[in-house]
C-alpha cells in the first residue's frame, strides 16, 4: 500500500505572526518556517504504517516555494521514502492544492492520502475534504485513530460532541487531528540519510492544473486589541467586581 502525505511549510507555531504595515498580508520574510504541526502528525502516522508492514512506500509532497524542499527533507528524515515538490511562487488556495494533489494521485496511485486537518497559517481546514470530493473517494477527517485491514480503514474522528468511528473503503482520504500520535524528532543520522533520498521537482503546469486563486485578499488587519485588565487581590474582590463592575454574575 502506498501512502501520499501532503506537507505544508508554514510560520513556526511558536512565532507570533505580524501583520505587514501595508495591510497586504502577514510578514514571512526572515521568519522561522517549519512543517505544519498537523502534517508532522500525518507523516508520523504514515511512517508507523510502514513500520507495521501495512504501507510499502511513503511519498511526501509539498506545493510551494523552493524552500519547501526543507520541509520535504524533514518528512524524509522522519521516514518518508521520497518526495515531490510542486514548485510555485504564488500562494495556492486549497482548491488549487486539491487539484494538484488529484493530478499527483493519478500519477502515483496511492491507496491512502494522509493530510493534516488544517494548516496553522490560513486555518482553512479544507484541502483533504476537497481532494476527497474531486476524487470521489471516502473521507475520514479529524482522525485520532486509524486502523487499516482488509482494504478498509477504520477511523475514529474528533467531533463536536465526542468521538465518531467510521469505516472507509480504500483508497481514501484521512486528515490528522492532534491526538492521532506524537510525532518523532528526526535523528541526526536520519537527517543525513534524508539528504540522499530522491526529491523530484515539478511545476503545476506539468500537471495541467490551473491554480488561479478565487479569493482576493482585500486587506489583512490586526484584530482589535483587548484592554489590559487589572490584578485583583483576593477571591472576594474578584467576585465583587464580577458582580458590580462587570455585571456578568
Amino acid at each position, binding site marked *: 500500500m502506498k501512502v501520499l502525505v501532503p506537507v505544508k511549510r508554514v510560520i513556526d507555531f511558536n512565532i507570533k505572526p505580524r501583520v505587514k504595515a501595508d495591510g497586504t498580508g502577514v510578514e514571512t520574510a526572515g521568519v522561522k518556517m517549519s512543517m505544519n504541526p498537523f502534517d508532522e502528525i500525518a507523516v508520523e502516522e504514515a511512517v508507523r504504517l510502514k513500520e507495521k508492514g501495512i504501507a510499502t512506500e511513503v511519498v511526501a509532497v509539498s506545493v510551494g516555494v523552493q524552500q519547501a524542499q526543507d520541509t520535504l527533507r524533514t518528512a524524509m528524515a522522519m521516514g518518508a521514502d521520497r518526495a515531490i515538490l510542486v514548485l510555485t511562487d504564488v500562494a495556492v488556495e486549497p482548491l488549487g492544492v486539491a487539484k494538484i494533489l488529484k493530478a499527483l494521485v493519478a500519477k502515483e496511485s496511492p491507496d491512502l492520502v494522509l493530510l493534516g486537518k488544517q494548516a496553522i497559517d490560513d*486555518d482553512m481546514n479544507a484541502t483533504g475534504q476537497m481532494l476527497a470530493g474531486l476524487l470521489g473517494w471516502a473521507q475520514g477527517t479529524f482522525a*485520532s485513530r486509524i486502523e487499516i485491514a482488509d482494504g478498509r480503514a477504520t477511523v475514529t474522528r474528533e467531533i463536536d460532541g465526542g468521538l465518531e468511528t467510521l469505516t472507509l473503503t480504500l483508497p481514501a482520504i484521512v486528515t490528522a487531528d492532534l491526538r492521532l500520535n506524537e510525532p518523532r524528532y528526526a535523528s541526526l543520522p536520519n537527517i543525513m540519510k534524508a539528504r540522499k533520498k530522491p526529491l523530484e521537482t515539478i511545476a503545476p503546469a506539468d500537471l495541467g492544473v490551473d491554480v488561479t486563486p478565487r479569493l482576493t485578499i482585500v486587506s489583512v488587519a490586526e484584530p482589535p486589541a*483587548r484592554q489590559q485588565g*487589572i490584578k485583583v487581590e483576593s477571591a*472576594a474582590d474578584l467576585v465583587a467586581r464580577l458582580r458590580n463592575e*462587570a455585571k*456578568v454574575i
Partner: protein
Amino acid sequence: MAVLVFLDHESGIIRQASRSAVTAARALGEVHALVTGDASVAEAAARIDGVAKVLRAAGAAAAHELAEPLAAVIADLAPAYSHIVAASGASGKNVLPRAAALLDVQPIPDVVSIVDADTFVRPIYAGSALATVRSSDAKKVLTVRASSFDPAPAEGGAAPIEQVTVPDGPALSEFVSIALSQSERPELESARVIVSGGRGMQNEENFKLLNPLADRLGAAIGASRAAVDAGFVPNDYQVGQTGKIVAPELYIAVGISGAIQHLAGMKDSKIIVAINKDPEAPIFQVADYGLVGDLFDILPQVEAALDKAG
C-alpha cells in the same frame, strides 16, 4: 437567489451554532434549511425564526451526516442558491469543503463578518490577523463562526418541509459508532459562562475541582490542549485554534498559561478571568481580572465568596 443553510444536529437536537448560521445567512437572502435525520429534526428546523423552507434529506444514505452523500445532495441543490452556509463546527467543516470541490468553488471558512455578498472577514494565523477576502466564484460556500452571530430564535417560524433525495452513489464510508461525552452542563459554544482548566490542574482527579465552581455559575467546562492531551478530560472540551471557538460573557481560565493557540479560541469572550500562580503568564495580558496564586487555594475561596454574595 435564496441561501441554503445546512443545519447540523446531535441526537436529534439542532445545534445552537446552526441557528447562528441562519442569522448570518439572512443577511444574504431568503434562508432554506437542509437537514438530515428524523422528521422531528425537520419540524424543529421549520420552527426556527427566519427559515423560509426546510429541505429534508431522509433515509439511510443521509443518516449520521456522512460527508459523501451530503456533499452530493448539496451539489445537487446548489444551482438554485447563491450561497451555501453552515456553522463552523465539525460537521460543517467536514461536509462543506467537499461540496465546494464538487462545485469548483474555493470555500471561505470561519467567517466572522459579512461585508457584502462577495466579501467576508475571517481570522487567519490563530486569530493573529483578520483577512478580508473577496470571492470571484459564482457561488459562495461559507462556514460561519457561531460566536460572531446571535442564534436565530428556535421558535417563531412555520416553514413548509420538502423531501430531497440523496443522489445514488457507492457507499464509500459507513457509520460504526459514536461516543458522546455525557454532561448535564451547557454546550461550550452556547454557554454564558465557561470555566476552563489547563495543565495546572495536574490530573484527572484534580480537574474535577472545577465542578463546584461551574455548578455555582451554571457554567460549561472547557480545557486547554495540554489538559486534553494529558487525558484529564475528553477531546470535545478543547478550546482554541484547533478546538472550539467560544465567546461567553465570562471565561475563567484556571491553570492555563495563555498560549496563542488557546487565546485564539477564547479571546473574544466579554470578560476574562485568569487564575495562575505565575504573574508573568501571558493569559494575564488578555484577562480583565487576574488573580495570582495557587489555584488549589483560590478555587475554594472563590466558591466561598460566591456563596457569601448569594
